[in-house]
């Protein structure tokens, strides 16, 4: 069993990102879509810390902290929007919110 290296981390990151992307594209429930976005963000974070550790640069670490901060703000705003949408339509199905279509 070889050492767990950069390749493993990046592979995990890619798998997580793909799961997130597929979740965003296929799921109807706005909350699950939202969670899938969080998975994608964290997949990116994992890639950042992996490379930061590998090349010994703290820049990547700092970037991850920024992403976490932004994701927290985004979670607050996003969940507030979902609550507002639910109050309006009594559903959180994203396909119900297509009144802006041409």
């Amino acid at each position: 069993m070889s050492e767990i290296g950069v390749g493993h981390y990046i592979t995990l990151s890619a798998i997580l990102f793909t799961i997130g992307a597929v979740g965003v594209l296929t799921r109807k429930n706005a909350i699950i879509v939202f969670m899938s976005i969080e998975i994608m963000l964290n997949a990116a974070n994992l890639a950042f810390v992996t490379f930061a550790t590998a090349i010994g640069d703290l820049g990547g670490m700092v970037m991850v902290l920024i992403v976490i901060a932004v994701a927290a703000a985004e979670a607050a705003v996003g969940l507030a929007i979902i609550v507002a949408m639910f109050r309006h339509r009594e559903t959180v199905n994203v396909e119900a919110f297509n009144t802006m279509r041409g």
Partner: protein
Amino acid sequence: MAAWIWVVPALPLAGVLINGLFGRRLGKGAVSVVGPGAVGAAFAVSLALFLDLVGRPTAARQLTQTLYSWLAAGDFEASVGFLVDPLSATLMLVVTGVGFLIHVYSVGYMHDEDRRGFARYFTYLNLFTFAMLLLVMADNFLLLFVGWEGVGLCSYLLIGFWFKDRDNATAGKKAFIVNRIGDFGFLLGIFLIFGTFGSVTFADVLPAAATVLAPGGDLAFWICLFLFVGAVGKSAQIPLYVWLPDAMAGPTPVSALIHAATMVTAGVYMVARSHALYDMAPEVLAIVAGIGAATALYAATIGLVQTDIKKVLAYSTISQLGYMFLAVGVAAYAAGIFHLVTHAFFKALLFLGAGSVIHALHGEQDLRRMGGLKSIMPVTYWTMLGATLAIAGIPPLAGFFSKDEILWRVWDAGHPVLWAIGFATAGLTALYMFRLFFLAFHGEFRGTPEQRQHAHESPPSMIVPLVVLGVLSVVGGWIGIPPAIGNLVGHLPNAFEGWLAPVFEGGHGAAVHGAEVHAVPPAEYALMAASVAVAALGILAARHLWLARPDLPQRIAARFQAPYALLANKYWIDELYDAAVVRPYNALSRFAWRVVDDGLIDGLLVGGTGALVQWQSRVASRWESGNVATYLTVFFGGAIAILVYYLFG
């Protein structure tokens, strides 16, 4: 005196402004002073100008005044300038003199109009006088054309004066449109003149005509032909005469002033004015004479069977205008203008007399419902008799001298066929005019009893112009006594030809037809006797047919049904024009409207552009599905595409 020239047209123009702007508030009394007064004052100034000319030596009889330069563009220059020479002075006196009488007459005739209509009527009538004066006084072709169009406009406005009746409005439109056809030719003629001479001023063009134009050349031919097309329209000759009979829809004084005495003679004036050009184009002169003769005879035959008193006079006017063109067509310009003047007197009188009859019978115009008016309206009767004798050509009345002068000139110029046509027309003229006269004034009254009861002699404002014109119709011809008669009573020169000689000299017409007393060939006396005889024959025939044997005309009509129908329906020319010109033109217009405008421009170009944009928008807006998943799919697709491009591109 030359400084006063501008006053002549300015006076009627002032009348237009006063009557047009304040006429309704001023009331009928003031309008009936201002309207005729302005024209009367213009007559007084014209008379002063005329006397000034008379007082000068023959060669110096020319006054000019240039008010201002109107148009100047490169080589082109046209000014608002007036020329008063014997020719225009004569026309000015006719326009303002006869015009004044008709204005006075109108005060009585239009009495039943309300204030508004009354003011509008005199505004138009003054505007007409202004435009007509502009036409005869202009010193260049362009200003003449302005007056030419101005009188056309006034003619349109006055024919359709009672525009609430659709027929009147249609008649006005017809007159205007037919005139436009002629005006188009006139305009082309002016363009050609400018292109050839580099100027439109008479003083530049006319003296240069003999040197610039080759006699009988193409250029002279086309210039004169185009000018003549204008004259044909304005002066109601074949083939553009059709508007004049319909123009009788206007008030009768308008018919007298515009459609008998002045405007319709503008074509004769224009040809006479530009005689220096016509002298260079003998072929066109032949056309002018031919059309004149044909029109004279043609219109006279139609006049023979018309039952509307004004229609008879309208066809008579067309016929007499034909005489005038016959005269100028044989280069006897002075004779043409002479007939223009005498015709203005007696035809204005005939129309005003007819108006007096119509007025008395409350709008009745049908000759078949008149008769026996002699005792009811004696003044109208006697003045009408004078005018009818004058137009029939009975000596010593005005029409005799002018018509005989024309016939003699035609014969003398070597056109026996044209003379024969004119001669036959003279007989027909006497026939149809006395038919009108006998039907209206003699025999039994054939109208309703109410009409009979209300029939009355016209008021003084109408009677006085009748009497003045009656006197002029009798003595008016004495201004142009030919040597054939002048020699008999002691070497009287032909005053009228002598007066106009300075204008018409230079052309070959003047050389032959100078005013000097020359030996009179016996043929002239023979022709004179013949035309008097044929006129007398016409009168006697009319007396026999419509007075002695009133049943005879109907039997003749029944016997010769086909020719009668041909005449009664005016040779079906209106129908022919309708089928050959109006309908195809309407069809073309409808095509342009429905297919070109509605279909091509509105439908394809405007509508098509709109539809294209709409279609594009519809296609583009499909992308805006509102479905988040779709947006994201595209977004990821795009991101992957960029990634692939950078990795493998």
